């Protein structure tokens, strides 16, 4: 869910895909607008995406990477040779890595409703010449996947070798496998679930409240002003805690103080502990790169998500899938706990799907899928290889 992973981790870019650039395409051109699950229509829709590796002659080696809540299309490589920060999954995507770009053609696109290039509430509505703001159609994961599927078609790919994602990305993988069963051969679901838990909704609610309650929110029409920056930063601080674990916070910060070894005994000092300072920093940085309206839409989308919606049961929904599944959870993830992955696996077994499951040990909580890439690569590599050969 969080792309703000440790910089010392991202900085390693051995076997990198090198310098890449984000591309952009307009889909759902008139007279064929996207029909949202809500019934509303919108078009054209701009989609930004990146690709790595080479598509083979029969277009059978494509792997689609679904990013999490606040991620973007820049999953691997650098945007320029002096770029200091590599893509958010650079340690996992590249030649010889978990998703091996010497064999596979990898696509990652920014989600619909996002704010990193793909059409979202901050984009200009062609019909009115104004930004959508909160008039943007209500968004579901089904709509996000519908746009990605259209992108894949546009790229000349009829069937994906694999779809992979963590957290909200994992939800997209599930949706994809069920909505487009003949287009997905391997579905890899990391630190995710078939629906968001009530606890997850609770944390999202706090984040949204912080944005709504910010006087700068202006009912979402804040683009010519500073916007709800305090609310958005607070939303991020709360959410960020849910991506960590007790262990990782203890390990990284403990009760250590930021710039002193003794208490200040002052109510003026708001960031006395290192963990406080860290959360403030995360909040501040997030405001620079993320749009509050997108945050509202995307968290709401996540709350609404329930794969079984429209089916008699989760098993009924999953029975449509034709992919083989790999499901992984992390033992310290309390936002998407292992029990939710196990439930998913159990339902997959009910409808007799090919499924492998592991709970990986890692101290980094929900963010583990972005950080602990070695054990992940050991499974995902052969899983894709065998599916490709099958």
């Amino acid at each position, binding site marked *: 869910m969080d792309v703000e992973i440790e910089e010392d981790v991202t900085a390693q870019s051995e076997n990198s895909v090198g310098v890449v650039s984000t591309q952009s395409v307009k889909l759902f051109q008139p007279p064929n607008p996207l029909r949202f699950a809500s019934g509303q229509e919108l078009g054209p829709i701009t989609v930004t995406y990146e690709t790595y590796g080479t598509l083979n002659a029969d277009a059978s080696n494509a792997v689609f990477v679904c990013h999490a809540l606040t991620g973007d299309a820049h999953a691997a490589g650098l945007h320029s040779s002096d770029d200091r920060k590599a893509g958010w999954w650079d340690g996992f995507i590249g030649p010889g890595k978990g998703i091996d770009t010497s064999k596979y053609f990898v696509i990652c696109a920014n989600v619909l409703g996002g704010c990193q290039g793909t059409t979202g509430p901050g984009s200009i509505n062609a019909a009115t010449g104004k930004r959508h703001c909160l008039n943007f159609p209500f968004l579901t994961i089904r709509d996000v996947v519908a746009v990605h599927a259209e992108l894949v078609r546009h790229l000349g790919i009829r069937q994906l070798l694999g779809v992979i994602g963590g957290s909200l990305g994992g939800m997209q993988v599930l949706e994809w496998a069920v909505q487009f069963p003949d287009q997905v051969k391997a579905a890899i679901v990391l630190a995710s679930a078939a629906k968001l838990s009530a606890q997850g909704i609770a944390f999202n609610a706090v984040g949204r409240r912080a944005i709504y309650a910010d006087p700068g929110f202006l009912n979402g029409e804040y683009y010519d002003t500073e916007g709800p920056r305090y609310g958005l930063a607070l939303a991020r601080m709360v959410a960020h805690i849910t991506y960590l674990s007790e262990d990782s916070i203890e390990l990284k910060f403990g009760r250590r103080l930021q710039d002193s070894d003794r208490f200040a005994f002052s109510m003026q000092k708001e960031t006395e502990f290192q963990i406080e300072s860290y959360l403030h920093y995360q909040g501040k940085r997030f405001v620079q790169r993320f749009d509050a309206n997108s945050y509202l839409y995307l968290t709401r989308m996540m709350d609404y998500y329930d794969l079984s919606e429209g089916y008699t049961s989760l098993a009924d929904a999953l029975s449509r899938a034709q992919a083989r599944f790999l499901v992984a959870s992390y033992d310290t993830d309390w936002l998407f706990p292992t029990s939710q992955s196990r439930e998913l696996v159990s339902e997959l077994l009910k409808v*007799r799907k090919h499924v492998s499951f*592991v709970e990986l040990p890692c101290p980094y909580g929900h963010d583990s899928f972005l950080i602990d890439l070695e054990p992940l690569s*050991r499974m995902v590599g052969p899983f894709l290889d065998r599916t490709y050969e099958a």
Partner: protein
Amino acid sequence: MATPSRYQMPDLSVQLTDELIMQHIDRNSRVIDLGCGDGRLMQRLNSELGCTVMGVEVEHGNIVSVIERGLPAIEADLNEGLVDVPSDSFDYAVLSQTLQQVRHPKKLLLEMLRVARRALIVVPNFGHWRVRLEVLRRGRTPVTQALPYEWYETPNVHFMSMRDFRDLMDGIGLRIVKESSIIRGRAVDRLLGANLRADSAFYLLERDPGWISQQSAETAARPS
């Protein structure tokens, strides 16, 4: 570690147990292999008998090995039952040389026959005369060749004989469809004084009319 003179129960070769298990599995059936290791048997069942297979393993490294074979495996601790596996989702459940190592063998047996129609089990026979002699003469508990651990560190936490096993089957509504004795690396269907002479035993089990209802089996399977 065991002194050289101490009797060690012979361990079965994987070839022998694999063959024995494969002989009793129908083509194209659905098989769940509990404690599947690196997936060796699963691969044979899949490629030679066309079976749809799934492994259950506790070791990550083994799950990776199974994935490398292109087969599926899920992580689970057999001590906690098979809670993730739906009832009646397999034709056969296989458990080779592991039953004596789980905390609640009875619960696991019931679980196996909840998820599968039939169960195939290989267990060491601690009723073997050499084991008895060892206990009688030297007052020592049995050890096996591959697991020559002392009592305080052995993974073998239950010492059952063939007679014990039969008694349990009667008590929990499971029927022994087939019993083979394994003696000096060979499986024999009829062995005089099997409980004294067999090193290990192979069982093919199925539910009896007296089978405890699925509900209670599931209850029994919950980790206590």
